[in-house]
């Protein structure tokens, strides 16, 4: 919380100069007003795109609220995808949502993180038809479960695959080789 309070004057100063930053400040104010400032953590603007982390308990309300909102009309779900950070204990898996307002041309990136042992995230299929395959992809790649999804089965990989290949523990190359170390050949 302390960080947020300190960053507000800096944001206001930046907003006066740059129309994109001004829009982001307007969007952030809207988010805080609709859902409360404590809902969002790690608010930043990497490369001009407002990014905030929230919780999986709130994400459905937030996306639904923004879809209904008439002020900024963030009612276009550009994309959503899973992520995996094995070293962050209790926050290993993540989902990233990119929302876009076609009338105001503002983008918003929302992130949620949750433990890999409990990879359950509310579905967005009741709000956006486009979320259907995106969630199936996230399930396929990362094993994230979306209760309420109409047809949560694998989409790109074969049905009988028994792991979720985008998780970081599955190395792309044969793990038994010793002549190629990560030091010289990629990650």
């Amino acid at each position: 919380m302390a960080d947020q309070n300190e960053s507000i004057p800096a944001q206001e100063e930046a907003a006066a100069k740059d129309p994109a930053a001004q829009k982001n400040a307007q969007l952030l104010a809207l988010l805080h007003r609709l859902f409360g400032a404590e809902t969002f953590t790690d608010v930043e603007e990497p490369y001009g795109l407002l990014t905030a982390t929230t919780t999986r308990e709130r994400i459905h309300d937030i996306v639904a609220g923004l879809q209904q909102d008439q002020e900024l009309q963030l009612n276009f779900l550009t994309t959503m995808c899973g992520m995996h950070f094995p070293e962050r204990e209790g926050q290993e898996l993540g989902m990233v949502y990119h929302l876009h307002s076609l009338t105001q041309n503002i983008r918003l990136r929302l992130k949620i993180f949750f433990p890999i042992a409990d990879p359950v995230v509310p579905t967005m299929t009741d709000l956006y038809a486009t979320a259907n395959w995106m969630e199936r992809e996230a399930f396929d790649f990362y094993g994230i479960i979306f209760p309420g999804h109409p047809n949560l089965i694998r989409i790109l990989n074969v049905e009988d695959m028994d792991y979720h290949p985008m998780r970081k523990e599955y190395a792309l190359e044969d793990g038994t080789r010793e002549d190629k170390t990560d030091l010289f050949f990629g990650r």
Partner: protein
Amino acid sequence: MAVNDTLEGTHKIIEEAREQQARINPLAPTVNDFNQELTTLNLGPTHPATHGIFQNILQMDGERIISGVPTIGYIHRAFEKIAERRPFYQITPLTDRMNYCSSPINNMGWHMTVEKLLGVEVPKRAQYMRVILMELARISDHLICNGILGVDTGAFTGFLYLMDEREKIYEIYEEVSGARLTTNMGRVGGMERDFTPVALQKLRAWLKSFPAVMAEFEKMFNRNRIFMDRVVDVGGISAERALNYGFTGPNLRAAGVDYDVRVMNPYSSYQDFEFEIPVGTKGDTYDRFMVRNEEIWQSLRIINQALENLPEGPYHADAPHYYLPPKQAVYKNMEALIYHFKIVMGEIEAPVGEVYHSVEGGNGELGFYLVSDGGRTPYRLHFRRPCFIYYQAYTEMVVGQTLSDAIVTLSSMNVIAGELDA
């Protein structure tokens, strides 16, 4: 019960099937239902009329489609996973193979994403060169789509004419990058080489000859009674549903929404050019066809403007850390050798951060979401592939239509298997 003897009967069955779908499992595989005289038809995966590997299990009532279950992933190559182990410059060939009808757009979109991450400013000449190549790619993409739509409605001639023009575009690619289909064009920081005099000559000659061919193609199709009977009011989608389904590009514009990334978030100097965004009204196959035709004319306008005002100057950024030095210098100059080695090994200084960049691809908003942890490869790279996102609406668009309508709908949506499956 008689099935589709009357239109009302068909509508009733479709209504019932919809209700049934909503009630049970909307996407359960369909089976032959002999009580209602329904047939299950396996369309694909390798059906010549689908132009790619897509499977649709359709439940048919005579000629009408009652439900469909699409299966995709037949050419899934795990690009997002592979990209996690490739330095940035090695990811360009992966992007080639997404929408392989317009590879240069994918290449440039990827380069721009990396440039955004690295903070590299590309000189004006390179930006204009990119615009010319991207618009050429858009034209070739739309030519394929509209030409094949002609084939699917029984008119092969138009396709043959347009393939000839696409061949000329590929010759221009060849002069610029050395490759034709999977172009691997441009580099992070600009272009790999300047336009050669031959490339410019070929481009100018093509710009002179192409409009006549395009006009002839339009004359052949636009008001053709047979063609219009096949495509008007076929496979329509409302603007509201299209937005809900995440449509972008020509398919969204055909439904009447004027969203174009080139205008809304201009990149690579698109703000310097004057062009119009064509929109349709109904979002049906005919609208998609007409929107693509008009976009070809607008792309020609952009190319002409860019070529006329092509600025002098360097064709790549002065960014030795990221842009390969000339090969001759590598042999003679120590710094050049060091940079060459470091870039080839992927040892570039990438900042920690995340960036989303999108370009207007042939089929819509092609987005790259890149998460960098400062390593030599992306930590996570997600491609927002427009095909993948809008193809899920296909079932909804063809339910209630005939099988032949489903084929032209698929064709006019321009679903490219490489982009769909990535």
